[in-house]
């Protein structure tokens, strides 16, 4: 491959996009400069008015394999990622069976190697079958490259079990990711406790359920020297809890999902299950606080919590319908449309939080569009638009609030190494 992107701007985590041509040959960025001469034999792509950016990385996805392939498979999930400009993902282990031993990790990674065009990483469970009782097979999973341990979907309810796991696995160089809630407070885990839960007549899950568990997990990490990563933070006080613990020097990182930044309980309307996830959408004030937390660096990463479910499952009543919405096909465009295009934040924040930091977090090198670096980049048209029809989305499921909506921005190309993974 020999290709030059002419007339575009290069996005990086360090500042506003800079006008430059980008030449890529044999999987390496060979030149980034204005008015680059067209190399012999290079294909010229007109990038004027467009953005060349590092490809994204999503540290929180549910690919449902093994066990729930009717919702998603590694093959379809990774294609959804490419469709959305994402070239690396971390799978969550709440599959059936759960990813809690070397054998299951091996099966998942072998499957990914066979069907996926992008690297797939998997987390492993903290406890066997995510049951919160006995430790999962830590050493065997570590040998296969697992670095993140989580029982995502549920907290480890017993603090003594989590403390022991932290004491043990930290010495293997592994870290913890916490889905935070106190199950006794959460009720049926359907929506936020507040105005909307009263109106719809469903027991709500209060923000303090998440905040108490989050605080507990960070305290345990602080006490044991573990690194804990707080997943999908949904509330203002949760964000402030993390800010405070960071100021105390705790080894804590955190992620925010696009849906918690952009939507709130009012969007549920008349029981729209495309706004049902756990933790639930909270209030407009929480949206604003989370956005501020993202800008202040309280959140290290943006991650989608891509959670596919079938149309049939989501068509059930609000309490019965499963939690979660998809994210990979659309996160980049959704964030561009709602945040970058509206001046909420710039490409630098997006590249930092959805590309560079998630890779560092997983112990990987970021993929800046710089001379001499491996090419892993996207071409994005800010003047284009994307309509999220079922046909457009590559995920097996289409449980997303943006279904059939047209948003500003369009992923035009995805390049990884010497391969063009996507071109429209």
């Amino acid at each position: 491959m020999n290709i030059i992107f002419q007339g575009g701007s290069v996005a990086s985590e360090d500042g506003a996009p800079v006008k430059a041509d980008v030449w890529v040959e044999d999987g390496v960025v060979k030149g980034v400069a204005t008015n680059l001469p067209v190399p012999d034999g290079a294909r010229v792509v007109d990038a004027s008015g467009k953005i060349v950016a590092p490809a994204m990385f999503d540290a929180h996805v549910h690919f449902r394999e093994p066990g729930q392939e009717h919702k998603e498979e590694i093959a379809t999930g990774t294609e959804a990622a490419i469709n959305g400009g994402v070239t690396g993902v971390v799978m969550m282990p709440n599959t059936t069976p759960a990813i809690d031993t070397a054998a299951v990790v091996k099966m998942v990674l072998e499957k990914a190697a066979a069907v996926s065009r992008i690297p797939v990483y998997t987390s492993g469970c903290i406890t066997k079958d995510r049951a919160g009782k006995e430790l999962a097979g830590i050493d065997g999973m570590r040998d296969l490259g697992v670095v993140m341990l989580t029982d995502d979907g549920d907290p480890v309810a017993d603090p003594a079990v989590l403390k022991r796991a932290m004491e043990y696995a930290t010495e293997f160089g592994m870290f913890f990711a916490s889905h935070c809630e106190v199950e006794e407070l959460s009720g049926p885990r359907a929506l936020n406790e507040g105005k909307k839960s009263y109106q719809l007549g469903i027991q709500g899950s209060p923000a303090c359920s998440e905040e108490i568990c989050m605080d507990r997990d960070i305290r345990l990490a602080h006490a044991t020297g573990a690194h804990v990563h707080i997943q999908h933070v949904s509330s203002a006080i949760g964000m402030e809890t993390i800010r405070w613990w960071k100021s105390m020097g705790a080894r804590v990182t955190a992620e925010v999902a696009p849906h918690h930044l952009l939507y709130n309980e009012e969007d549920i309307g008349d029981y729209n299950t495309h706004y049902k996830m756990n933790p639930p959408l909270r209030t407009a004030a929480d949206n604003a606080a989370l956005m501020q937390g993202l800008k202040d660096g309280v959140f290290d990463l943006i991650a989608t919590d891509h959670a596919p479910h079938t149309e049939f499952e989501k068509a059930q009543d609000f309490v019965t319908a499963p939690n979660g919405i998809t994210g990979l096909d659309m996160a980049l465009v959704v964030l561009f449309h709602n945040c970058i295009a509206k001046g909420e934040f710039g490409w630098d924040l997006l590249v930092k939080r959805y590309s560079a930091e998630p890779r560092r977090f997983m112990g990987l090198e970021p993929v800046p569009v710089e001379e001499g670096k491996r090419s892993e980049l996207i071409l994005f048209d800010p003047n284009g638009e994307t309509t999220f029809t079922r046909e457009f989305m590559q995920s097996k499921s289409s449980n997303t609030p943006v279904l059939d909506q047209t948003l500003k921005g369009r992923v035009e190309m995805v390049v990884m190494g010497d391969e063009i993974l996507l071109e429209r």
Partner: protein
Amino acid sequence: MARKDFLDIASLSREEVELLLEQAVPFKELFTRSVKKVPALKGKSVLMLFYEPSTRTLSSFEVAAKRLSADVTVFDVPHSSVVKGESVKDTIDTLQSMRTDYIVVRHQRAGLPLAIARQTGASVINAGDGAHAHPTQGLLDAFTFKEVFPETDGKKVLIVGDILHSRVARSTCTVLQKLGVEVAFLGPGSLVPKKGPEGVKRFTDYEEAMKWGPDVVYLLRVQMERQDAPFFPSLREYHKVYGITEERFKRISGEGTYIMHPGPVNRGVELCHAVMDYERTLINQQVENGIAARMAVLYSLKPGI
């Protein structure tokens, strides 16, 4: 414009509420005649789909539908394939194939009647869904209220008890507010949501609530089945703090305040025995008016099939 479904009070305008209340008046007059039946829904079919046990609401709807000359089928949920694990969606598809004109549904899941309404051409009437809504109860309460107070604007109703789990509180509060009635809540802190409906006063003390001067005290049923994981220490304590005790009853009857209750009552919990014989206790009127209100609802809807 006629609606297909009757799912909640919130989506109705004040005019629609008042129209339904007016329509209920001639139906109620019918009850004093020897023939209590009109041919309004002759040849139409009404299916009663009750996923939750109910005697009062089920029989009230059944009587209402029969007085309109409709054919009534009671779908016996405890013996149906629902208990064999059939999904609600598949049940709906089955019902759709029966081409019934009206479906009256009660379900423990909030929002389920709406889900059914979206998937069927039949008119769906919500007979109570979880803690969400019980709109025909709201309507019958408004009807009963209006019989006593034809001018509703500015009147005051105090709703006492378990607001949190009560679909009755939600629908009755909403319908009264639509009619310009001021509503206040009184109940245990564990059973009155902090973020409730807008414009509702919240009292924590019985005496203060009575000083507010309500025209009606609306008592909600204490749900005994929740006493496994109680929201208050004991029924005795509930009666003492939030119930109409003998002593409080003296004052209420002295001031001529009306009492309402959706039934069935727990004597000695929400109220003392004497309240049941008080001439301004409207509980029996509520039951009678329930039939008229439900007839008005059935009569007003326009099935889409």
